[in-house]
């Protein structure tokens, strides 16, 4: 098969463009593991934060001699930071909430809806 000379001359440009896109483009996926592994990963992120919150609360309760005020407050804060951890981890994946790509896609859909 004879290739068109224009294609070959443009090949180098295309390679350069591809390299540039790969360097500055969307974030690469963190892991290519299955959906269960990802779910488990996020679950442990949440659990870890709740446990640390509980530990902090338990320590503070013992120090100040309170019954369970700090455990409740710190566990709630632990839940919040667990969700924050999950969000930060998921952000590193493609098509996850909050990544540039999804924001971009969401904007596109919104624009389409407006034009309709």
């Amino acid at each position, binding site marked *: 098969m004879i290739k068109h000379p224009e294609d070959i001359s443009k090949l180098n440009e295309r390679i350069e463009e591809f390299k540039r896109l790969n360097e500055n483009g969307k974030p*690469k996926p*963190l*892991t290519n*593991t299955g959906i269960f*592994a990802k779910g*488990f*990963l996020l679950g*442990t*992120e949440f*659990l*870890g*934060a709740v*446990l*640390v*919150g509980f530990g*902090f609360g338990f320590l503070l309760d013992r120090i100040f001699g309170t019954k369970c005020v700090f455990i409740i407050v*710190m566990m709630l*804060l*632990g839940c*919040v*930071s*667990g969700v*924050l*951890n999950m969000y*930060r981890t998921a952000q*590193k994946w493609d098509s996850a909430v909050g990544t540039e790509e999804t924001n971009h896609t969401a904007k596109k859909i919104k624009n389409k809806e407006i034009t309709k």
Partner: protein
Amino acid sequence: MSNLFEQFEINKIIPVSVKNVDLSFTNSSLCMLITVCVVMLSLTLCLRKRTVVPTMAQAFPETVYNLIQGIIEETLGKDGLKYFSFVFALFTFIACGNFLGLFPYSFTFTSHITAVGALSVFFLLMNTVLGIKRRGIEYLRTFFPAGIPVVLAPLIVPIEIISNLSRPFSLTIRLVVNMTVGHIILKVLGGFVVSMGIFGFLPLFGDFCIIAFEMFVALLQAYIYTVLSCVYLGMAVSGEE
């Protein structure tokens, strides 16, 4: 069926006690020592004859090298390659430890919260020290990111502190739970092979499949542990969330 958790029991091999502090050499320590020896020996033997076109033996450490290099460049950038030796040691130690634990009469030290937790806490301390060294007082911004109203400080600071401290916990739980569950399933199915008599080949086949899956999990968990450690290190050093 014998006790499911018998395989995770720590036995003293050489009892040592200094001022009521137990410093005994246990089966866990022995397995860690064997892991280090296996990693060092295999790398030395594989790289004995170094050629430009790698042989099969040479290709193995080179693949691991490329994998770790890829992880570091992806998470820390080119600048992060100075931590290469540490990350390489971390990955090979955990991967080999997970893998050796699958052998009969062996011991999986990665199924113990104390062993993996100590490693993760060490990593947290290292992140903090490196973060302070690189960014100075600016490191405290980790606990109160820029652009947040000062009024929210009493809420944000504890949340960020818990978020920062929970990282070694989540790393530890993830690895330990995966290893423990896999080994328990293997033992349960192994028990069924004997108790089901003539139909014992069914759980035996299941065991065979689980062993293959566990090999995959052993490497995958070591990979995830290493990637996330690098991500956390990158967060501490660069300050980006």
